[in-house]
């Protein structure tokens, strides 16, 4: 009897270890950004206070995302060139997320979804799911739905998907 419970427990333990620790490590591949950009340093040195100083909306309301080199130009005299950033928060192609609606209409501040990303002293490592290809930081649908439920903003599938 004891022997049975022992072997059973052994199996249980192995599985738990594998599932909780080995698996997450194996699932994500870590990829380096082209440049280790530090938000905190920029906030302090350049006196940039608002996220929107660099991450702006275009006239048509669409979000400009990661700024082009010309935004860096005023401070950095050496050309920054064009870089292929790995965007931690980039949604998959079938998602339509309007920053304009969430910022201008819902009056959310960036940290609500992005957390203290703006104060990060070190660049956040980009971890990509080997199976789905998603970034580990990307907001998942449950989080969207939760917030929408709390604020009683009902939208259909195509309200957020395209």
């Amino acid at each position, binding site marked *: 009897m004891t022997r049975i419970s022992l072997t059973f427990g052994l199996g*249980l333990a192995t*599985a738990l270890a594998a599932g909780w620790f080995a698996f997450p490590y194996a699932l994500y591949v870590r990829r380096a950004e082209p440049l280790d950009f530090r938000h905190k340093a920029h906030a302090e040195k350049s006196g940039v206070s608002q996220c929107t100083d660099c991450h702006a909306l275009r006239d048509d309301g669409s979000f400009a995302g990661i700024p082009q080199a010309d935004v860096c130009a005023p401070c950095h005299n050496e050309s920054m060139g064009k870089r292929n950033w790995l965007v931690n928060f980039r949604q998959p192609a079938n998602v339509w997320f309007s920053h304009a609606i969430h910022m201008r209409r819902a009056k959310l501040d960036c940290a609500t979804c992005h957390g203290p990303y703006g104060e990060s002293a070190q660049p956040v490592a980009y971890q990509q799911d080997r199976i789905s290809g998603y970034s580990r930081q990307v907001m998942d649908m449950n989080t969207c739905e939760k917030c929408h439920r709390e604020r009683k903003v009902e939208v259909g599938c195509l309200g957020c998907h395209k």
Partner: protein
Amino acid sequence: MELTRRDLLTWGGGATAGLLLTPLPWKVLDDTSKWTQNWPWIPQPSRAPIEVKRSFCTLCPNGCDLRVRVASGTPVGVSPGPQSALCPLAFGAHQLNWHPGRLRQVSHLGKAASWNDALAAFRKAAVEGPIAVVDAYPRRAGSSVMENFARRQGGTYCIILSAEERSLAPYAAWSGAPVTSLGYDFEHARTILSFGAPLLDGWGAPGRVPRLWSTGALKLIQVEPSLSRTANAAWRWIQVPSGSEAALAAGLARVLLEEHISPARAPLPPTTVAEAAAQTGIAEETIRELARTLAAHGPAVAIAADGDPAVAVLNFAVGSIGARGGIVRRREGGPSYLTADNLNGHFRAVLIDATVPWDFAPQADAEVFRFAAWNGGGSRAHWLLPAPGFLEELTDVPTAPGSAVDTYAIAANLSTPPADVRSPAGFLAQVDSALPSVEDIIHARCRELFRTHTGALQGEETVPVSRFAAPERLEEALRTGSVWVAGPPRSGGLRCRFEQWPQPTAPRATADWTATWVPPVLPPLAVKLYRESSLREPPAGRSI
């Protein structure tokens, strides 16, 4: 102690139980489904910002205005501009530049060659003898470069008439006015008597007659042996045996003149109403009643789709030549050109513009340099020269054939062309450095428009030319999608001499809406239309 089978089983049981308490099975399940939603072999649309720009469709001489959505230097959507409606093909036109039939490489007799080879061969030909230049879309800046070249080289520049212009040819002959300066004043007509012209099916600018027809103000009478799209939708369809159209025209003319119900004065046609009725199989009374409708519900105009003088002459009796709502001569008009079918004499080489249809057969023994953006196959060209595709080059847009008023517009280039394409103008500039560039000609034309101070620019709103401070402003407005529109045609600006009632010519097949479409290929999405709907058969001679 040694491991027994039981130990393994219990261990396995524990492991299974444990695994279910970890995220592993659930995460894998979730991830695999996400994987199916983002399969790596499925192309992803661009994430670049979309800009809405204005330009004009140059795939046929009608030059409809476009609103084009552009993402990172590539059109990703085509919509009609405020002035026009578009043909079905235009909505897929932005995909044409990547059509498998796209020409990307100079070839000589089917073998890959370079632009330098082509230049060398063309220079040699230019030295050795006269060169004929064929163009199907005259009066563009690019066209006048070709025209200039031909003149300076001692060759000939000739054009191919569009379907609309062919139908106007008789009046040009009778009036001496160049056919490119004539047009139909449909906008003021109340009745159109069409002898086989596919007015609702791509004859002229796609939006022009259909829009007038859809308001219900226009009575459309279609004379045709079989039920075409236009006949089907027309106010009346007059079914006549093929070849008897002229007889009907004569019969109608006779009634109009005998009964003095039209202002026109002309000698009676030889054909009597009875004879017309006999030939067309239409009751005399129907012919009379039809003629009275023309007179009562004017302004009316008759269209001879294939330019048969014996039909065109009916407009004398209707009194619609040079009249409001009839056949008019535009203010500016255009020069008269030699047409390709009247081209004779020996030529060392023929330069064919990309707008020329592929069924055009040049003179046999000449060396043929053919520009084209897409390969129509089976051409007798020695040299195939890749030309810019849809919205890949800056060009100006002259008046559409058959239009009642002069217009001028500039089609901005919105798509980045492949590395190795050249326009004929660019090519000729390398042969004869004295030729003006397309840019120069466009500047000059804008200055000219500014100088004349007539007409207005139609864009989001209409602005008279006189309001512009400088030619640069005018040109800027034109380059951002505005259309210059001249004043209305002078009434009586067209005088035709009546000689005698012409003999009917053999009827020619009337072309449908793909007739003036320049590319020999169709947008893949239009091919869907052909295959999945029962709307129409694929047009002949176009590789879909």
